[in-house]
């Protein structure tokens, strides 16, 4: 029997240690992807931020350019005004130049000439009349800035400040010197409103950006804001421009600096989800081998258990089991019961093949069934056969053979199950014999009952008829005749009853004394009894019965059988020749055989074989034939467990053979 012992595979044992901690790996996976995501997001954020910054730098550059442009225009305009100052300090042609400047530079709202700090000329006059003759150097609000321009000897933009004529404006003052002596200022007034408009600030998206415009107070150094204050958080995302000519600062800031960050939140969220998913997936993936390992372990456990169970069944089974090579018939593996049945040890039996231990009479059937099995014609087979034990005993077994190869595969080995059915088989044989015997006996008894009724009825009907005839006749002579007939019938009836009695005694005597009998002695006694007949017939008798011929038989039966056979041999002799009778005793195998051979008239066995030993069956016209002798002889031999046979040729003679048990 194959031992399919599965070892738990070691491959997994050698796996890296960390593989046994899928959760840890899962967490690492999650963190890795999370970090990667964050890194990418950060990069993206940086790029976006740079873009934003660049955009803001561009914007502020654009604004700076615009303001610069306005300031340069203002400077040109102021320079043009300054050129109006004659070397003697008078102003000529202001009325012509001023309107042209105003129309040429739309950013400029007004121009002034301020000799010695007093505003003497202004254009357009109408809105600005109120400032005429105003001494700026005496106004503490503007004096510092005016002096700053004077000190620096270059144009300086003051303000934004509240104009006396109303509105916020910046005032660019160009100090004018005549031969190094301060003359006064050429001033240009630009309304803050106009400046901002010219800067292009207001054209920019108000949704996205916030702006501020401030001035560092030249005196106090304090920063003064002119627009709505920017929210505190925005300062971080701001760009600043410094205008040295006026100590101004312009700010641009993102209205909603968190928007950038917020725009990345969905992606961040998605990245997190993805990382979590990948982490879980990795954990699950790494758990697979563990699950498989667990499955393998549990299967291996079950297999070991079932192997153990099988081993136990195999070894403890009450049925002999063997695994046999299907080609050579050699025994490969046997269980205890098998060895016990055959009487060989496990080692001895491995040297033997099926043929060695099978009764020759059963090899053919076994062979042909094995061939059918190998050829796939049958799936398994059972047969009853005799096996030879080591001590030579024959044991009846029931053999069941099942192949261990799959359908379509080449035959390899098979399982042979051997069940000891010897006692059963013997009992069966015995039962069959008994059944046969009982059936035979029953048949004989039935037959016997017919014979009895027939014979008795034939006599009774004769008596009835004779009495009837007797009654209907008055003739004395005839009546006496009938009485004589009745006597004869009575005698015949007597004989019949005697015969029947003899038959019944055999049929009923089941527990007869059986002893060892020396046949030679019985033959001699019988020949002594028949001495007269032998002499009368002039018969020659030769006897070849060995002294050691001893049979188990009932003495009275043996006498009766011998008497019947010898009487028949003498009685049915041929009229043409004197009788020659040969009596032989010999051994056939284990059993003794007695032959009685004659050269008499013989029997036509073709016609009469079935009737020969029947009751009241006669085959000749011989007057002494009653059809009882052979019937009784056969019954006596049968009752002793032997059998009788006959060989005969009509006209030449017969041989009766008695086989003793």
């Amino acid at each position: 029997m194959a031992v399919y012992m599965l070892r738990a595979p070691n491959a997994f044992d050698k796996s890296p240690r960390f593989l046994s901690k899928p959760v840890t790996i899962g967490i690492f996976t999650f963190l890795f992807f999370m970090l990667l995501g964050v890194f990418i997001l950060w990069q993206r954020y940086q790029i976006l931020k740079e873009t934003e910054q660049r955009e803001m730098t561009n914007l502020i550059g654009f604004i700076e350019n615009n303001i610069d442009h306005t300031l340069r225009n203002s400077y040109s305009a102021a320079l043009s005004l300054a050129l109006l100052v004659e070397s003697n300090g008078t102003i000529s042609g202001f009325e012509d130049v001023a309107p042209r400047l105003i129309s040429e530079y739309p950013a400029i709202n007004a121009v002034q000439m301020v000799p010695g700090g007093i505003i003497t000329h202004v254009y357009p006059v109408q809105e600005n009349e109120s400032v005429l003759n105003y001494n700026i150097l005496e106004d503490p609000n503007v004096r510092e800035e005016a002096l700053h321009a004077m000190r620096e000897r270059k144009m300086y933009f003051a303000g934004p400040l509240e104009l006396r004529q109303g509105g916020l404006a910046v005032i660019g003052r160009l100090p004018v010197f005549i031969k190094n002596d301060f003359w006064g200022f050429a001033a240009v007034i630009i309304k803050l409103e106009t400046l901002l408009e010219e800067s292009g600030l207001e054209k920019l998206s108000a949704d996205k950006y916030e702006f501020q415009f401030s001035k560092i107070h030249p005196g106090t150094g304090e920063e003064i804001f002119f627009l709505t204050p920017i929210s505190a958080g925005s300062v971080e995302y701001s760009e600043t421009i410094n205008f040295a000519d006026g100590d101004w600062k312009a700010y641009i800031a993102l209205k909603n600096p968190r928007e950038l960050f917020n725009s990345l939140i969905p992606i961040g969220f998605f990245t997190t989800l993805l990382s979590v998913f990948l982490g879980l997936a990795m954990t699950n993936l790494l758990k697979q081998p563990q699950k498989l390992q667990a499955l393998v372990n549990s299967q291996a456990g079950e297999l070991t258990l079932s192997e153990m169970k099988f081993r136990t069944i195999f070894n403890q089974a009450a049925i002999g089991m063997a695994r046999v090579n299907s080609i050579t018939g050699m025994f490969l593996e046997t269980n205890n019961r098998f060895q016990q049945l055959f009487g060989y040890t496990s080692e001895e039996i491995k040297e033997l093949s099926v043929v060695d231990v099978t009764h020759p009479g059963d090899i053919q059937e076994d062979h042909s069934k094995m061939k059918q099995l190998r050829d796939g014609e049958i799936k398994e087979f059972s047969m009853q056969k005799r096996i030879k034990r080591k001590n030579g005993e024959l044991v009846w077994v029931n053999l069941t053979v099942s192949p261990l190869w799959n359908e379509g595969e080449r035959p390899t080995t098979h399982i042979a199950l051997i069940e000891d059915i010897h006692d059963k088989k013997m009992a069966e044989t015995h039962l069959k014999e008994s059944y046969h015997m009982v059936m035979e006996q029953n048949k004989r008894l039935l037959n016997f009952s017919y014979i009895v009724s027939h014979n008795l009825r034939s006599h009774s009907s004769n008596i009835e008829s004779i009495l009837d005839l007797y009654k209907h006749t008055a003739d004395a002579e005839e009546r006496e005749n009938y009485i004589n007939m009745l006597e004869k019938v009575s005698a015949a009836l007597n004989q019949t009853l005697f015969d029947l009695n003899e038959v019944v005694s055999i049929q009923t005597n089941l527990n007869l004394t059986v002893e060892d009998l020396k046949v030679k002695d019985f033959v001699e006694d019988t020949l002594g009894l028949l001495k007269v007949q032998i002499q009368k017939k002039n018969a020659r008798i030769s006897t070849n019965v060995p002294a050691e011929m001893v049979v188990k038989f009932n003495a009275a039966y043996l006498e009766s059988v011998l008497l019947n056979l010898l009487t028949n041999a003498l009685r049915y002799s041929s009229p043409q020749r004197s009788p020659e009778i040969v009596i032989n005793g010999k051994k056939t195998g284990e059993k003794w055989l007695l032959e009685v051979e004659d050269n008499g008239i013989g029997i036509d066995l073709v016609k009469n074989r079935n009737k020969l030993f029947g009751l009241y069956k006669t085959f000749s016209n011989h007057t002494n034939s009653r059809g009882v002798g052979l019937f009784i002889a056969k019954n006596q031999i049968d009752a002793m467990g032997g059998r009788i046979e006959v060989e005969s040729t009509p006209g030449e003679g017969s041989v009766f053979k008695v086989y003793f048990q």
Partner: protein
Amino acid sequence: MSKSICIIDDDYIYQIIVKKIVAKAGIFNKVECFENAFKALKELQDPESKLPDLILLDINMPGMDGWEFLSELKVNRPNLHHETQIYIVTSSIAMGDRDKALSISEVSGFISKPLTVSRLREIGEGLG
């Protein structure tokens, strides 16, 4: 009108009885008896000879029984059925014998022993 009868039976006493019964019945003026079937067959199988009007045949006889006699007789006399009437007369009570007798076309009837004068008359009057 003369009628003949033939009796085949191994029982000597029975033969004597039947002869008396035949005489009493007064139908047959010719009676022939055979003590076994061999002798009867030897006499009756000659196709040239005339068969008796009635044959009373026993079944259980030594050597050749009634059945064998019938089949042997048929060999030489294929028209047996038209030439004579055969009655099986036996003391056997085996149903098999009765059934077998009636299944043979040449057999006209079955008589259980004892044969009586009246039964013989009945049969005799029924003859052609």
